[in-house]
Structures are given as structure tokens and as C-alpha cells.
């Protein structure tokens, strides 16, 4: 059976690598300056959110351990529970980054479509609209 942290970290690592590749390729493949900037900002935000979520979850998995340490007042580990809960709050920032990045990606999609509609021949566009 698959451990859950493998899935969580694996998905975040794959997304991070893909976003890194997207940043590198966007300099060559995307001629429009504003779209390129938005792709880079969105990819950086996705990488950040993945890192925050992965790190936060891996620390938060030690909740039971930290709870035990705090409750039984282990020497030098009295604030372990606070530390673990702090990482849960930090991971919220990952979700905020995710919302902003997805918003940027939706904006990129709309801008790309309007750019393509401007360069496409008019006859094709009419046909597409008539078909709908």
C-alpha cells in the first residue's frame, strides 16, 4: 500500500518540476510579454504553495508526538505542540498562494484566447460562433 506522504510530496514535487520547466521554456515559447510575466509569477506561486503545503503537512504529521511531549512535560520539549500548530497556520499561506496562482492562470487563458482571436482569420471565427 502507498503511504500518504509519498502521494502528497510526489504530487507537489511533480508540479514544482513542471512549473520550473514552464518558467525556463516561457522565455522562448511565449512571445507576449504580459502573458510571459503572468506565467512566471503563477508558476513561482505554485512552487511556493507546494513547498509550504508539503513541509507543513510533514511537520503536522508529528502532532500526536508533539501532544505527548507537551502533555507529559518532556524536558526541553514543552512548546513542541505550539511549533507543530505554527506549521499548520503557515500552510494556510500555501492555499492563499494557490488561489492567486489559479486566478492568474485563468487570466492567462482568457488573454491567450483574445490574442488568438485577434490574429485568427475572420471567416473561421464566424464559423465557430455559428456552430455554437
Amino acid at each position, binding site marked *: *500500500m*502507498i*503511504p*500518504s506522504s509519498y*502521494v*502528497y510530496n510526489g*504530487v507537489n514535487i*511533480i*508540479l514544482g518540476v*513542471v*512549473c520550473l520547466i*514552464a518558467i525556463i*521554456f516561457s522565455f522562448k*515559447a*511565449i*512571445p*507576449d510579454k504580459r*502573458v510571459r510575466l503572468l*506565467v512566471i509569477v503563477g*508558476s513561482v506561486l*505554485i512552487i511556493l504553495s507546494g513547498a509550504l*503545503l508539503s513541509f*507543513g*503537512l510533514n511537520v*503536522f*504529521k508529528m*502532532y500526536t508526538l508533539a501532544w505527548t511531549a507537551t502533555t507529559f512535560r518532556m524536558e526541553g520539549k514543552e512548546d513542541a505542540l505550539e511549533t507543530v500548530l505554527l506549521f*499548520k*497556520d503557515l*500552510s*494556510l499561506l500555501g*492555499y*492563499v498562494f*494557490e*488561489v492567486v496562482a*489559479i*486566478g492568474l*492562470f*485563468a487570466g*492567462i*487563458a*482568457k488573454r*491567450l*484566447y483574445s*490574442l*488568438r482571436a485577434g*490574429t*485568427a482569420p475572420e471567416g*473561421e*471565427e464566424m464559423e*465557430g460562433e455559428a*456552430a*455554437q
Partner: protein
Amino acid sequence: MNIILFSLIVENGAFIAIFIICLIGAYASFKQYKNLPGADLIFLGFLLYGVYSLLAFTGSGFTGSFFDDFSKVGKLNSLNYIYFVSFALRLGLVLVIVGFFRVARGLKA
């Protein structure tokens, strides 16, 4: 107590916002998929990402925390497979990015 409520609102609100944005993006792509190669990939990617956010805020119960619940999942079994499926759907973003490059290929500098 208050900070727990605040974090629940932020987390579930973020997922709802992502779901709505994904629907908007998917609808805009669906209108274009016949004319542009690559728009179908963007449509599919936004749809997968939307399903991920939908499962994330409904799967753990509307007032629950997906993050909190996922941290308690040890290994894949028949009770918690929904967490594995929903988080893997995040990879729909890969399709969106690939679609961007396909659509951008037809742009003139």
C-alpha cells in the same frame, strides 16, 4: 478557538474560490476548443483542478479541514482512497500549462 475558526474559513474559502475560478477558466476554454488546438487540454486541466477543490471542501465535510484530515491518513485503504484521488487530481495543472504552450505556439511576436 478563534484562530481555529479563522484557519477553517481561510482553507475552505480558498477551495471554494479555486473551484469557482476553475469553472470560469474551463467555460472560457470550452467555448474555444473547436477553434484552437490546446484549448481542450486547458479545459480538461481546469476541470480536474476544479474537481480536486470540490472534493477538498466537501470530502472532509464543509466545516472540516482537508489538511488536518490528510495528515491523519496513514496508508491507502478503502476508507480514505478519496484523499489520494483528490490530491492526485492536482496534477491537472500540468495539462493547463502544456495547453498554454500549445495555444501560444500560434501567437505572432
